């Protein structure tokens, strides 16, 4: 369900967090749970090289992430898809010795420009990790609100309650936890914990949501629940999802990018990117065709 169109910004600069308005209340629509204006943005990566010290992990990747679409990054293990994903929200540089070369821009603004604060970038580009990692010292409520409390935004209790409920509904977790909001976040099942992490990520209303193999630690039922969730969330956010599960990419994404390694020790490269249907039925590169049809990898 499409919400109200997002505000256009006059200048492409990162607004400081305390200037951002809290998100407007959800507009109830037929689905009843996921209304809200879209904040999605486009990411353009041009000729991105990623290094861990001397090791060249990803070579000359150029990817366009379209707003309000799900882009899947697929490829065999070790080909650089997670590394590339982490460079989109400036988490790659947290590893000692890691560096990024090339251009990555969020709606026209280069996020690696000097003077750009990585902390602010990460508030606009959120991330959900492979194994669920709720904060163990916090309750369910505090976990979802963590983005707000840790960012220091002064939000009134009533607004916070409302944001927590909206995020939990958006993550399809509200009904399961509404009676246990004060219990620890770590007391939930794996699938619930992952949805809690998703709720936590969307509570700060990022513009892009990055998901690093979010279902690889979950059972098939929980996996399908998350995939349904992703399909709904793309109406509000831009989503990039790394997965080594091709069926998941085929099911859940609109655009697919295929990364590959020639051999171990060589950097990973982007082989092909295009609409999911094309990639899976009639890819242009032989390597892509081999991979998606299971002939290798």
């Amino acid at each position, binding site marked *: 369900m499409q919400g109200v169109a997002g505000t256009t910004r006059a200048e492409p600069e990162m607004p400081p967090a305390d200037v951002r308005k809290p998100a407007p209340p959800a507009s109830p629509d037929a689905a009843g749970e996921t209304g809200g204006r879209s904040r999605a943005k486009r990411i353009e990566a041009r000729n991105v090289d990623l290094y861990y010290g001397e090791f060249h992990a990803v070579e000359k990747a150029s990817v366009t992430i379209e707003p309000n679409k799900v882009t899947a990054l697929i490829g065999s293990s070790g080909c650089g898809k997670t590394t590339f994903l982490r460079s989109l929200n400036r*988490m790659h540089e*947290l590893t000692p010795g890691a560096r990024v070369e090339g251009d990555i821009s969020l709606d026209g603004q280069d996020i690696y420009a000097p003077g750009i604060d990585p*902390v*602010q*970038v990460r508030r606009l580009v959120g991330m959900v990790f492979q194994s669920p*990692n709720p904060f163990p010292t916090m309750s369910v409520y505090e976990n979802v609100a963590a983005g707000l409390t*840790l*960012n220091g935004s002064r939000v009134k209790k009533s607004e916070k309650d409302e944001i927590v409920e909206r995020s939990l509904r958006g993550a399809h977790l509200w009904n399961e936890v509404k009676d246990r909001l004060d219990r620890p976040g*770590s007391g939930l099942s794996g699938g619930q914990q992952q949805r809690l992490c998703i709720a936590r990520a969307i509570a700060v209303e990022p513009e892009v949501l990055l998901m690093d193999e979010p279902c690889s630690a979950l059972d098939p039922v929980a996996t399908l629940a998350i995939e349904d969730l992703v399909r709904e969330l793309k109406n509000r956010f831009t989503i990039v999802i790394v997965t080594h599960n091709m069926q998941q990419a085929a099911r859940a994404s609109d655009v697919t990018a295929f990364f590959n390694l020639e051999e171990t020790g060589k950097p990973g490269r982007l082989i092909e990117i295009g609409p999911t249907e094309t990639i899976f039925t009639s890819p242009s590169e032989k390597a892509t065709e081999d991979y998606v049809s299971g002939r290798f990898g």
Partner: protein
Amino acid sequence: MQAPGNKTSPLAATLGGGALPGWAPYGVVAGSVLFAAALLLATGTFSVALLLAGATLVSCLAIYVWSRSVEGGRRAFDRLATFAIAAAFALALVPLLSLLFEVVKRGLPGLNLEFLTESARGVVGGGGAAHAIVGTVVITAVAAIISVPIGIMAAIYLTEYGGGRLRKALTFFVDVMTGIPSIVAGLFAFALFAIFLGPGIRLGVMGSVALSVLMIPIVIRSSEEVLKIVPNDLREAAYALGTPKWKTIVKVVLPTALAGLVTGVMIAVARIVGETAPLLVTTGVVDSINSNPFEGRMQNLAVYAYSEYRTPGVMKEASYDRAWAAALTLIAIVMILNLVARLIYRRYRTEIR
């Protein structure tokens, strides 16, 4: 070798085997004690130590031989190892238990209300240790106030920020500091204050400074270990939400590690609460209650026990009694601190999945 009661299939024979009865280990120990006692009495060389040593040897041998003949070599060796380890454990416990027993036996008579509430001021042959108790509490508290922030912040630097050379140098010096003899720490504090306030000064806070030199490396070491255990993906989750590093540390890492940090501090406090040598040189010996660490001499339990023994008053026995009672009080304080640490740990520890 056929197991009793089994069918005679080859597999049963391989898998099964004899077993010693359940009472076997205890029977062997009892038998060995009797045997060794009899032997020693017969040769006229009876003593408790020889009895215990002899009984241990005999029982190890007996259980091995018996088990080997019934159960087979592997299980026999297993039983022998069990016996040897149990014996070693008992041996390690002996000094601890005997010490506790002695201190309780000799200290309990001296532990009365007068001891706990009165100081030795103006008293000949009587009085109590209230001044020493107050002194110990104050000196230890001030030492903790100095050491805990320094120690925990240093540990945070080493785990979260430290890089390269500075980190290696720091770790090296912390390791060296853990080995500093306590008298050296005392002399350091003495010299430090002598520079600023002239020699001959005796202050409660000098003792605290000396103790914190001993305490800081312990706090750093244990805090570092606890902070390292906090899983990195918690930090990443916080960063991904757009949290600055310092806030991640304060609001995510430290609360997660809190129980372990408190335990580490309690252990460090327990270590220094009984230190005598540095306090002898720095806080002096005095008879009245002084609860101001910045003014004048301050008595404490460790030095009190020493001075009561060294320079007993008119009534020697009473002084000795008080010395033992002071020792008992010290042990009681350490025990209470450890219990509190355990309770806090159990209450506040976070199950990290």
